[in-house]
Structures are given as structure tokens and as C-alpha cells.
């Protein structure tokens, strides 16, 4: 651990505050992210109903408008769907699935992309060529099309969705890391490390990685919101997560059939939550990106 730096946590917190101070939209986004994450995390405790417990659903509660009282006496703030599921509870659980799929796929995609990008920088030559041409190939496919293709071939399921999304994400990260890494490789501190007899792997992870990772960290939030939307799209199309663990996209799709018959609440609630979630992440991501771009801020 001697390679890493220790800064006092107070210093980190102050810098964190400095990034957001004076940007009310970004602060609101940050609050939104925290709120949504907490709801998703504690959905089983917070939700008035377990929407997956078939025994507790009552068909008599089906298609009730918002603010109705269910057969068991609980209040359904956002109404119910066709099988009598409480929308509020379903949305809470749906956020769980959406966030889980997005975070895992981005995590996997970024990890693979960063490592492959670093390997391309370190090894160069044909290894670099193979990695980068593969990345080009992945990026030349429309993301949703690629995911559709994969899901049609392998069948649907949360794990398949994660795989499909990660494939879209690794390529751009590999490219980014390679570009930054190449310019870092030319710097003398890398030469100094090689001169000190430091091994390739160690240079890669202790020298190159910490100096090439910043731009990746800036695009990660953007990738997460992108993954949420992509997952919702796939689920809406019916090739995403299975019906037993509905995500926001699947919930919207469920209500789609009832939209024109005046039962708008089934789709609108998960739709709004989806929009709010993505918006929160995007304003925070924008702020981080601007903060990282020296041309957009007066350096002090």
C-alpha cells in the first residue's frame, strides 16, 4: 500500500464539496442519487407490499387507480396493475433491479476495458492491434442491436443483459485508457520506474493505472445512466430481465397495454422514476466532467 497516497479524509471531503458548491442542479442530482440508492437498497423494508409474493396479491385489487385502498386495508398511493400489484412497491423493487444491472454491467465493462486498454499500452504491437480493432468492431455495432442479437442467441436473463451491456461499455473505456496511457508512457517517471527495475505488471497497475484512470472515472456516471436506459429499452422490448424480477423498463412495458384505456398510472410511475434517476445521474456526471475539463474552469 505504500504506493498509494494517503490524504486526510477531511481534505477529500472539502475537495468534494468544492466540486459541487455553487451548482444547485448538481447538488439536487446528488441528493436524488442518494435518495434513489437508499430506496433501492432498502426496498424490502420500505415497500408496503412484496410485489413478488404471489400469495399476497389479490386479483380483486387489479387496476385500481392511485390512492385506492386494497382488499387487505393498505393504501396504494400509486395504484395497482392488472394482477393487483401495488405500483409503488413494484417501482421500488424495479429500481433495485435496474440499478443492480446497470452497476454490475458498468463495473464489469470498465474493469475489462481499463485492463485491456492498459495491456494495449504496455505491450503495443500486434496485441495492441488486436485489442483495439476488436474495440472498433464492438463500437461499430449499434449498442441495442448488439444486445438484442446476444439476448436472442443466449436467451434473456439478468446475467445475459449484464453481459450484453458490458460488451458495449468495455470498448470505449479501453480506447480512453489507451489514449491517456500512451501519453503517460512517454513521461519520464515511467522511464524512471523501468530503470528502477520495476516489473511490467507493477508499472501497469501502480504507475500507469492511477495516472490514466481519471478520465474513466469521469465517464463512469454517464455510463451508468446509459446502462439504466439501455436495460430499460431491452426489458421494454421483452428481451431483458425475466418477468419474475421486473425492472423499471419491464414495468413500463407492463403498463403499455393499458395506456390507451385510461390506466396511465401503471406506466407513468416507473417511467417518471426512470427519468428522474437518469436525470440525477446525468447532471452529476455533467458537473464532474466540467470539473475535470481545465478549459471550462478557471484554474486557481
Amino acid at each position, binding site marked *: 500500500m*505504500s*504506493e*498509494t*497516497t494517503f490524504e486526510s479524509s477531511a481534505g477529500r471531503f472539502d475537495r468534494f464539496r468544492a466540486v459541487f458548491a455553487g451548482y444547485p442542479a448538481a447538488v439536487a442530482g446528488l441528493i436524488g442519487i442518494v435518495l434513489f440508492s437508499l430506496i433501492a437498497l432498502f426496498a424490502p423494508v420500505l415497500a408496503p407490499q412484496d410485489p413478488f409474493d404471489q400469495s399476497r396479491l389479490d386479483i380483486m385489487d387489479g387496476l385500481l387507480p392511485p390512492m385506492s385502498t386494497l382488499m387487505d386495508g393498505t393504501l396504494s398511493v400509486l395504484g395497482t396493475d392488472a394482477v393487483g400489484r401495488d405500483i409503488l412497491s413494484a417501482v421500488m423493487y424495479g429500481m433495485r433491479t435496474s440499478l443492480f444491472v446497470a452497476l454490475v454491467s458498468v463495473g464489469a465493462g470498465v474493469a475489462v476495458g481499463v485492463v485491456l486498454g492498459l495491456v494495449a499500452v504496455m505491450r503495443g504491437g500486434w496485441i495492441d492491434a488486436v485489442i483495439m480493432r476488436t474495440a472498433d468492431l464492438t463500437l461499430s455495432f449499434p449498442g441495442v442491436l448488439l444486445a438484442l442479437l446476444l439476448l436472442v442467441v443466449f436467451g434473456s436473463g439478468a446475467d445475459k443483459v449484464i453481459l450484453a451491456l458490458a460488451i458495449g461499455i468495455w470498448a470505449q473505456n479501453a480506447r480512453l485508457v489507451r489514449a491517456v496511457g500512451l501519453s503517460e508512457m512517454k*513521461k*519520464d*517517471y515511467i*522511464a*524512471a*520506474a*523501468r*530503470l*528502477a*527495475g*520495476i516489473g511490467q505488471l*507493477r508499472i501497469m497497475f*501502480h*504507475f500507469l493505472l*492511477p*495516472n490514466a484512470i481519471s478520465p474513466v472515472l469521469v465517464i463512469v456516471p454517464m455510463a451508468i445512466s446509459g446502462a439504466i436506459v439501455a436495460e430499460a429499452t431491452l426489458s421494454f422490448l421483452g428481451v431483458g430481465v425475466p418477468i419474475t424480477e421486473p425492472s423499471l423498463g419491464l414495468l413500463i412495458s407492463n403498463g403499455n397495454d393499458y395506456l390507451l384505456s385510461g390506466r396511465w398510472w401503471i406506466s407513468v410511475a416507473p417511467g417518471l422514476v426512470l427519468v428522474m434517476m437518469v436525470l440525477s445521474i446525468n447532471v452529476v456526471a455533467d458537473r464532474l466532467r466540467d470539473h475535470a475539463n481545465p478549459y471550462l474552469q*478557471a*484554474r*486557481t
Partner: protein
Amino acid sequence: MMAPLLAIEDLSIAYQLGDGRDAEAISGFSLHLERGRIVGIVGQSGAGKSTIGKAILGLMGDNARITGGTIALDGTDITRFSEARFAAIRGKRIGYIYQNPMTALNPVLSIGEQLIEAIEANTTRRGGDARAYAVELLKSAEVTHAEERLAKYPHQLSGGLCQRIVFAIAIAAQPDLIIADEPTTALDVTVQKAVLATLKKLAREKQISIVLITHDMGVVAQMCDGVSVLWRGRLVEHGPTAQVIGAPRERYTRDLMAAIPTVDHKRARFDVLDSFEDTPGRRRGIAFLKSGIAAGRDGQSLLSIRNLSKTFDAQGGRGTSGGFRALDGVAFEVFAGETLGIVGESGSGKSTIGRAILGLVEPDAGASIAFQGRPIAEMRGRRDRVALSRSLQCIFQDPYSSLNPRMNAGTNITYGIVAQGLVSRAEAKVLAQDLLEVVGLPRAAAGKMPHAFSGGERQRIGIARALAFRPELIFCDEPTSALDVTVQAEILNLMKELQETLGLTLVFVSHDLAVVRQMCDRVIVMRAGRMVEEGNADEVLTAPRETYTRDLLAAMPRIAFEDA
């Protein structure tokens, strides 16, 4: 007596900081410049030289403002000028010459297009007339084959030629005043002298006044009628060049002069303040270094280089078809305990020699580099590589890129020896602090990150890192060329000090003959990948045998010291 062309009175400029406070960059600066005269503004980086130049041109950033005083051009105060009024005088009455000609010219336009554009924008000449005038301007800027150059692009021309073209653009509208901001800093000495001579000739012929901003007293001595010395935004001293250089009145100017290395005689130390306190930590650090750096083998051959050539592939960047020969049959020996200087212009291959020795570039087949009698090419095993990296170390040119920005200073110094198991982590912590004291930094510096240090301080950390290995040989790749002259003097003093206490063997690469004279016992002169001359530094640099070395020496800007 006419009013001066440029009269700056009591000028103060402040920059607004991010938190809303003002930082004063220039306070109470005054300058008077007569028509056709050249005045120099000298000072260290950060002294505010460029800020003054930009204020005259109205090119200060949004966060800078003039807080007091006046800048009068021909009696008209221009400090309150609007952007539109500045635009009307910029290029026409005031020309500007940039530090780096390669970036000042537009790489996608030919020289002719750029020149004619400037002519048409600032004069009434058009078409063929403008073209003829462009050729005339190039000729007066002493550009050879002026006619043919019009069709060329900046990357096809050398830095010196590009700077002459920048001159031609600057004088196109026959301005009264030119601001030249470090016009030759990016050029080699041999080129610098001729380019400066042209600039001076232009100023005399066309009665143009020049404000020459530079950090180099040698340039001032060659060019300027008068000089203003700037220190932290304040005018320290001003007067005729001969007086300020020959008999400086102020302490700061004297220090600045004392820090300038000369090629004519070798000094034991530069007369600048050094802060080495004899602390227990420093003594411990020096004892550690002494115990590992084998002394008493003075005169033995440490490194022997035969037939070293290096060809870079054409696709590897520069050069034309068939590759670029960076080194051609270089052969020399380095003896234990000596300092060998390698001098030459940029592109002469001096850094490539070092990179080949250090194993950072692969030499062409047939080369032999032997360290302590063993060919480096055979030392491929893990143990040999470790032994080699312990024995050969490097001090890099650019202190801003040579430290890992994500490690604190202490870790930067010791990560290598820890990784090789030479010291334990616990020992390394103390050792890093001891070594920082050895190089003249406080112990507390170990915990700070590289960005918290100045260039000179970073270079000290780089020296400590190289020393930590207790190497047999240290390759110094232009270790002071990125530093201010006073900082350079401090670093050179430090290296001399370490040389004497530890008996280090150094290979010292520099483009600056004076620095090499101050540091080296023997010297090799390189030109275009070949060795031109080799010998005792005193002889080579005072009585060179080869014409090329003589030319190099003659091109050096010189300052007539009273005691020299």
C-alpha cells in the same frame, strides 16, 4: 527631445484568484523606450515579464486587470483602450514575436499564405504587390531562398527559419514597437545568435523599438541598449545594459549575475545561498550513500562503449525514408569518479546515448556497451537486470514529468529500492527523509505530493531518487535546462557538492557549454549523431581543435564580466 515611444508609468496589474481575491502580479513598474532602441526585461519565471508584454498588447486574460498606472504609446494612454481599438493597433503599430515559432505559425497554411494574409490585413498592398513585398520582407529577415520558401509549410523549415518568418510577419506593417517574448529560448545557441543579430539589424534599419522579454542575461548583453530587472512583479533595477551587467547595484541583480555559468573559467561553486544544515538526518543519509557507492577505484574504466549506432524507423516519427540515424559509430569510455560531459545541439543524439546505455532504447546491431567489463546485452537475467538498474541511474530533464504524480515525494524516492528489496518499507520511510535532507529539502517534504513542489525542488527529489540506489554511474540528461538560472545554480551546486562528498561518476548531457564547463572533467562534442571532438573539458572548451566546436563556442551569448 521627442517624447518616448513607449512610456510605462507606475503600472500595477492584478490577477483575480478563484476565491475572488486579487493577487498583484506587477506593482509600480515603469519603463521608457525611445524610438529605435531595444530594452530588455529580465527576471525569473513568474516574475511577471510576460504579463507586462501582454498588457502593452491588450492581450491579458479576463482575470487580469490594470489596477494603476499608465501605458502610453506615443503619448496616448492605451490602458483604457477597448478591444476594438487594441485590434486596430495590434499588428500595425505593435508587433509581437512569440517564444516558440513552431506553434506561432499555422501548420496548415504555407508561409506565403500566412505572410500575405498579414500584409493584406495590415497594409494597403494587395495581390502581386503583397507577394513582392512578402519576398522583400523575407529577404530583410535574412531568409535564404526567399522566393521558394513562400510555398513551404512550417514543418518543412527549421526552428530558426520559422522564427525569421515570424519576424517578417511582425515587421510587415512597419510597426513602431515589437514585443519579443523569449524569441530564441526554443532555439539552439548557434541559431540563436544569428537570429538575434537579424532582429537587431531589423530594429536599427527600420527604426523599430523592441521590448525584449527574456530570462537570459547573455541575450540581453547581445541585444539591448537598456535593461530592466524584474523580481516578483517589482522593478529591481534598470539602466544601460553595460552598467546593470557590469556593475549591478542591487543585491538581486548581483545574485542573478552570479548564478550565470560561464564557459571561460570554472568556478568551485556558484555564489548563491545554499541551505545545507548539518543535521543528524543528513549525516545519516550521506553515510548511507557513502557505504554503497564504491570509491577508491578512480580512473578505472566503468563503462565502455564501442560502435554505438541507432537508427529510428521512418514511421517512428521524424526522418525521411530509410530511417533517421540518431547515432553513428559512437565510442567512448567513462572512468570511475569522473564527470563526462556530452554537448551538442538538439538532434545531435546526446540523449539517445544515455537512453541506450540505460537500456531504454535498443541500439542497432553491432554496438557494444560494457559495464565494468561485462556487455550489457548479456545481462538479461533477473538478477543481472536488478544489479544493473542499481548501478546505472538517471536524472531526467523535465522535473514536471519525471516524478509519479500519484505518489508522495518520499515514495517517489524509495519505491525502486523497496521493490528490489534493498531496504525494508520501514527503513525506506526514514531513508527518504534523510535523503531529502541530503539534497537540501526539509524532512516534512516526504509526505507532500509532487505538484506541491517547484521545478527546482522536484529536480532535487529526482536527484534523491537516483542517489537512493547508490549507483555506480548517474546519467544526467539536461538536468537543469528546464530551470531558471538561479535555480540552476543551486542544483549545480548541489551536484558539485554530492560529486565531491560521494565521488560520484556522472555522465552529464547538456546543450549548454557553460554548464558543462562548470560540471565536467572531460567532454565529448556531438554533431548529428557523430562524435566531433573528445578531450579534457578545459582544453576543448577553451582551445578547441575542431571548427564545429569553435563555432559552438563563438555562438554562445557572452557577458563581459569585470573579473573574468
